């Protein structure tokens, strides 16, 4: 019994101590856990702060990135080897950079676009596009352009980076030199209808060379040359032909005028038209064009595209006046000493001319698989429909006026009498003759393009320009000839035969 009581007493002592010990241990663990919790809390707070910091940085970076997405950069480089078959070409084969373009596009807010596109061709850096485009954000139909941009015409607006042959057709190069013009344009393109209307107003002289008597371009910066503005309009509509393809049709018109820069104006056939009151009077630049593009799915894409343009294109002339005063001469007549001066006024003038022209081009394009494309183009350009090939070199306007005014005496003194005699002589040379600028051309262009991928393509193009033969004179020589000098040897092209001017182009294009 005593033993049992002793065990109980011992247990009574040990158990509270055990409980106390466990309690102390548990309390310690709780304290440890609390400490850990506090540490964790601190860590979580630190991490949260760090995440907030990262989020803030991401938000800032996203803001910066969003700004960057408003800027678009694109462009292309065309490096090419050219072999010229024309005898006047020296060097006859060259490596060259045909186009080196970078297009910067910035859209700060939805619907407002700034575009800048310089061309970095070595030795001839030019600004191709520079315009602001305001797009209507509500109907998504209207857009207003202001600055320098492509004239509204199919072949002009069709990018050189996409064109299936190396260069544009001859008629387009003639009437739309440099493709771009400075002005404003309204585009109407309803989103649900394949209709596009473009109305534009331009200075009108972009890309034109306006020569003085010595052949120097008097307007190299292409500033506006007169107060008249030129108007252009183009309408296109595309018909879908089910799953077979599509047919696009359109028309464009150009209504413009340019300063004659001379008094006399000729008709297209070199007959006299009129005399202006002053050289600031205007000559016509009016034409219309009709276009069609047929896309047909025949074992891959097949396209037939063409345009016919005709109208009147005015070319300004020039008037250059020079005055020369001769030295004084003396003579004695009836006891009178006569002192004479002669002032010769010479006016070299080239009349302006309004030429009727016509031209067209037809493309046949076939895509073969994803990588190959073949294209053939036939284009025709008659820069003067009113002068037949036989008459080119003969049709001319030539007016020479020689006027001499004499004996305008002024007397002085009584004995001896001295007379001063002022003589004025006026010479006007005013002529213009038909020539190389009136020759009609048909040009055949063949091209093959291999697309390495979306960015790189290689094109082999061969252009065969064929001039229409002009008539020959009684000596058997063509009515139009032109001299050229290569390496000190002067030779002559006789346009009574077809002049060899073919060009081979091997072009590598990288687009980004």
């Amino acid at each position, binding site marked *: 019994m005593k033993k049992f009581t002793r065990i109980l007493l011992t247990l009574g002592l040990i158990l509270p101590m055990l409980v106390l010990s466990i309690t102390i241990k548990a309390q310690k663990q709780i304290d440890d856990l609390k400490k850990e919790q506090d540490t964790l809390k601190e860590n979580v707070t630190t991490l949260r702060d760090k995440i907030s910091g990262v989020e803030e940085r991401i938000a800032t970076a996203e803001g910066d990135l969003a700004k960057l997405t408003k800027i678009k950069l694109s462009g292309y480089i065309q490096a090419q080897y050219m072999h010229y078959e024309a005898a006047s070409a020296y060097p006859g084969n060259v490596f060259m950079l045909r186009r080196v373009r970078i297009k910067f596009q910035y859209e700060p807010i*939805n619907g407002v676009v700034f575009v800048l596109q310089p061309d970095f061709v070595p030795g001839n850096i030019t600004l191709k596009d520079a315009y602001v485009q305001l797009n209507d*954000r509500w109907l998504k139909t209207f857009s207003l352009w202001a600055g320098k941009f492509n004239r509204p015409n199919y072949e002009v607006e*069709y*990018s050189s980076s*996409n064109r299936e042959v190396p260069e544009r057709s001859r008629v387009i190069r003639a009437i739309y030199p440099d493709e771009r013009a400075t002005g404003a344009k309204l585009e109407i*393109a309803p*989103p649900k209808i*394949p209709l596009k209307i473009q109305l534009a107003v331009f200075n009108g002289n972009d890309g034109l060379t306006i020569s003085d008597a010595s052949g120097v371009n008097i307007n190299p910066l292409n500033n506006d040359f007169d107060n008249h503005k030129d108007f252009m309009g183009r309408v296109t509509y595309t018909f*879908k032909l089910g*799953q077979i*393809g*599509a047919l696009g049709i359109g028309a464009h018109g150009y209504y413009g005028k340019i300063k004659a820069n001379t008094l006399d104006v000729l008709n297209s056939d070199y007959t006299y038209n009129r005399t202006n009151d002053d050289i600031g009077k205007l000559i016509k630049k009016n034409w219309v064009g009709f276009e069609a593009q047929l*896309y047909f*799915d025949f*074992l*891959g*894409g*097949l*396209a037939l595209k063409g345009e016919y343009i005709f109208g009147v294109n005015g070319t300004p002339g020039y008037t250059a006046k020079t005055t020369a005063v001769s030295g004084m001469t003396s003579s004695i007549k009836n006891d009178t000493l006569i002192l004479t001066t002669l002032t010769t006024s010479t006016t070299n003038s080239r009349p302006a001319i309004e030429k009727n022209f016509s031209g067209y081009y037809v493309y046949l*394009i*076939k*895509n*073969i*698989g*994803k*990588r*190959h*494309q*073949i294209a053939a183009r036939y284009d025709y350009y008659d820069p003067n429909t009113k002068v037949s090939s036989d008459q080119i070199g003969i049709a001319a306007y030539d007016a020479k006026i020689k006027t001499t005014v004499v004996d305008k005496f002024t007397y002085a003194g009584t004995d001896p009498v001295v007379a001063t005699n002022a003589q004025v002589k006026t010479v006007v040379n005013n002529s213009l003759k038909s020539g190389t600028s009136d020759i009609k051309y048909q040009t055949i262009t*063949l091209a*093959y393009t291999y*697309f390495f*991928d*979306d960015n790189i393509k290689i094109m082999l193009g*061969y252009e*065969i320009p064929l001039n229409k033969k002009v008539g020959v004179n009684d000596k058997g020589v063509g009515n139009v000839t032109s001299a050229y000098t290569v390496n000190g040897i002067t030779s002559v092209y006789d346009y009574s035969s077809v002049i060899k001017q073919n060009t081979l182009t091997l072009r590598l294009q990288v687009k980004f």
Partner: protein
Amino acid sequence: MKKLKTKFGMAAIVMIALFGFAFMPAPKKITVKGSDTMVILAQKWAEVYMKSHPEAVIQVTGGGSGTGISALINGATDICNSSRPMKQSEMDKLKDRYASLGIEIPCAKDGITIFLHESNPVKELTLKQLSNIFSGKTRNWKEVGGPDEDIKLYGRENSSGTYVFFKDQVVKTDYAASCQTLPGTAAVVNAVSKDKFGIGYGGAAYAAGVKHCAVKKDDKSPAYVADSETVKKGQYPITRYLYMYLRNRPTGEMKAYIDWILSPEGQKLVAAVGYFSVK
């Protein structure tokens, strides 16, 4: 003249030889790329078709409608899936590059579904309210009959056809800067399912685990939830076609595959995935 004739002759031979490429048999592998909305449908089609046509190899990837159309233009895919119609500018690129306007095949219908968290008391919204919410004009659920809490917006990236379609048809202006862009409708659904005050949009096929908000044209119109009947009848106000685009008319294996997609067998899968048949 003789030389010219020889040159023409040579050019003709080269062109005829190149023309021959057109008749070469097309490879059997078909690549499909584009709309993320359509990716599960396209994968299902490919999977079922390859089972019954073991010789066919069909590779399907997403990336967004814009990405798919770019891939079609640059030749990186044979078929482009797009949840929006091709833009005129994209068609022009195709025309410039391939002398073709491309082939458009509507292959399914979809109702763009508005996703809400399951606990959100809001049951229906008008198109105007949706426009205001996603453009940031309406910022609190209280303004549209919900709790006094900020609205959290979830949407798609700008390469997505769903993004473009929803913007053009519903938002009609810029999305709010606070709209969080996510890669794919599945990601939008996932985000909304975890955010009590979130709202998102996307293809109907993905709408599991979230609440479908009924949509009405205006205050006076009845509200509809996107289902086969309301989409087919045109009652649900945000319906659209889902398209496949090709560069040219399909031939060979590709034609067989597309014919099968448009067949009752292929269209049955459209409904099975959660979209609506075009037939």
